[in-house]
């Protein structure tokens, strides 16, 4: 489950006018998903630590002046949550549009075309164009690894790859350098991926990457499909073993 600290005590709350009960310690996101209420996310991934950076899962909680990230907010007794008000929908659209404007997403020639969470999100949120000025940064493709490829043009800085590498594989090859829009994923001390001493070539990062930023070498347009099922199994197995 999303939250490791559910203590089992039962609490009740309302999500989108639906009466729901859950165990204390569970996050709004986990409870909503258990109850088939869809809250969009990009940086969140079951089995990895909570990041709270994409801001797509923001919800309204009655009585709280600020929007709350559903992935990072624990349910409390009597909570009243709204997950899809017109305002939230508009904010989500703007956020995803900004991701398209930030780097260079040329879906038609992207290896992940048709299998991309960012692209799917645009469809889900009915984004047919981007209102913001495009940034057109000049970014590199790191082709130095013998199995995988990092295309910074497609990266949305969700840090799923960083977290899976550090938390699941235990290698911590990846991290982030720089600030603001200049932030970028790096390997070890900002060296080409292929020269990394710590990368085990496990490929987990490729599979958790929501976009065409991390792909297997030798994939052509539209060919890259990710397998994310391994992660819940892996975390579940480790939990039962320990």
């Amino acid at each position: 489950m999303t939250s490791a600290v559910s203590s089992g005590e039962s609490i009740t709350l309302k999500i989108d006018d639906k009466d729901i009960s859950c165990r204390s310690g569970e996050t709004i996101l986990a409870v909503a998903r258990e109850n088939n209420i869809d809250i969009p996310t990009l940086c969140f991934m079951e089995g990895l630590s909570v990041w709270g950076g994409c801001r797509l899962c923001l919800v309204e909680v009655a009585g709280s002046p600020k929007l709350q990230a559903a992935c990072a907010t624990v349910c409390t007794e009597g909570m009243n949550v709204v997950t899809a008000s017109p305002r939230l929908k508009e904010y989500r659209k703007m956020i995803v549009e900004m991701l398209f404007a930030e780097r260079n997403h040329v879906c038609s020639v992207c290896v992940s075309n048709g299998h991309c969470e960012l692209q799917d999100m645009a469809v889900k949120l009915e984004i047919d164009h981007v209102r913001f000025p495009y940034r057109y940064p000049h970014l590199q493709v790191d082709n130095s690894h013998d199995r995988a490829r990092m295309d910074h043009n497609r990266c949305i800085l969700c840090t799923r790859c960083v977290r899976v590498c550090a938390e699941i594989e235990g290698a911590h090859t990846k991290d982030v350098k720089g600030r603001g829009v200049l932030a970028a994923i790096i390997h070890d001390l900002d060296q080409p991926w292929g020269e990394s001493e710590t990368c085990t070539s496990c490929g987990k990062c490729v599979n958790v990457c929501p976009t065409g930023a991390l792909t297997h070498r030798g994939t052509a347009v539209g060919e890259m499909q990710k397998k994310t099922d391994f992660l819940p199994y892996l975390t579940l197995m480790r939990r039962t073993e320990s």
Partner: protein
Amino acid sequence: MKPEELTSMMEKARADMQAFDHHINVCTESGCISLQSDLLLKTLGDEVKHRGLTEKVCVKGVGCMGLCCNGPLVKANTTLYQNVKSEHAPAIVDSLSSQPVQELLCDTQQPFFTRQKLIVRENSGRVDPESLIDCIAHGAYQALLKVLTSMTPQQVIQEIADSGLRGRGGAGFPTGLKWATVAKAPGTRKYVICNGDEGDPGAFMDRSMMEGDPHRVLEGMAIAAYAVGAQQGVIYVRAEYPLAVKRLTKAINMAHRHDLIGHNIFGTKFDFNVEIRLGAGAFVCGEETALIASVEGKRGLPRPRPPYPANSGLFGCPTLINNVETYANIAPIINNGAASFAQIGTEKSKGTKIFALTGKIKNTGLIEVPMGIRLKDIIYDIAGGIPDGRAFKAVQTGGPSGGCIPADMLDITVDYESLTKAGSIMGSGGMIVMDETSNMVDVARFFMEFCMTESCGKCVPCRVGTYEMHELLDRIYEKRGTLDDLQLLKDLCGMVKQTSLCGLGQSAPNPVLSTLRYFEHEYLDLINQAQASEADRNAAAKGESIKLEVLS
């Protein structure tokens, strides 16, 4: 050190001081040092030595006296001199027993000095920050002594709560309440952190406090630690403040040597240690959760709250985090009582506030004023108005997280509530004054550029939103903007404010919102100019019968 020793040390130090016939205080903070006041201090010392007056004249370096634009400042007994250079040393020593040096005189009766109320900065400009003895002579550690020997932690917290003190780091959170939360939080290991990151452009209040009276900050932290049940303190200072780091380090070492921090302070069971951590100069590291991550040795990134640091902070332990100036307020509250503090200010904003005056203003420097003073009095009285006969246009308070206040609102009082109502914030105390030559779109663009480059990049709305807002401001300012761009800018402001993860993003739109509130016509003027040329082009397109070759 035993309790009696502090008193005897103080008395002895005071007697030693009185043994001198004359005192010369030279400002040795970063501002004046950049004008070579360190050389001046040395020259004055040498001059006294050459004349064989070392027994009679005490020459020492002190903290900031406020009027930084006229530095270096030197106080010779009760006479204040400005713009002093090393070559003036002989004349100043001459003047001690005769007439003041006329051409260097700085009028201490001008409103800049008389309208201030010095509580936090009472010893700044009076004590030698590098001398523990001198600080003790001026009352340092008396409050700590009082607290440790005669008050329970609960009483201390109550006293701070009663004083009405609110955090000086920006948000104005009630300090007593914060202390009570940390005190109540379960856990045996707790921390107190002093936030000396001070990243706002144009702000240097905290630097001055750390450079000019570091023991007061330490004392405030020790009292806080006692109140909340912490044994370890961390001072987080930006590495760009080397002098502050040096003086704090020295202060900690000296206080240690005299057992004012360390084990069993004043013979009580209270232990308290402090260490300094350097920030690498990221604005976001002033945000409390980012600061904590940075202290832990991680990337300085904010994280979602709750949990708040009061419950889960440094290394997951309950952590009190306050601003430098907040800690510097503690000793006077304890010494003089909550009531005397609460007497100053307005109903909800008590005490004094330090401001750093910069921009198009006659007197730039540091001032401490009672809360509730009219903004007008600061601008025209204390700061002496706008130079070169220009007209005042607006004052930016709260730095990149704040907003501007226009001329017709100068009657508002300076307190947390009125500044917020006016669309700005108190912030940490930066005040940037703009005159009629400033374009407010350009001002907004300046602050947005700051937020854009300082955004940590963790969350999308702030990372990309600040870039996009800056781009739109750029377009409008460079007369390429449209009304659609303006609308998009407004939409972005609302969205970035509501959806960003931390205070940096949440407040980044403020300078745009407040300039839009008071100076929207400046945006519209620029857009109209852009539209005029656009309209010409469209008219041409409509009438023109040029052939549209399909292939060209």
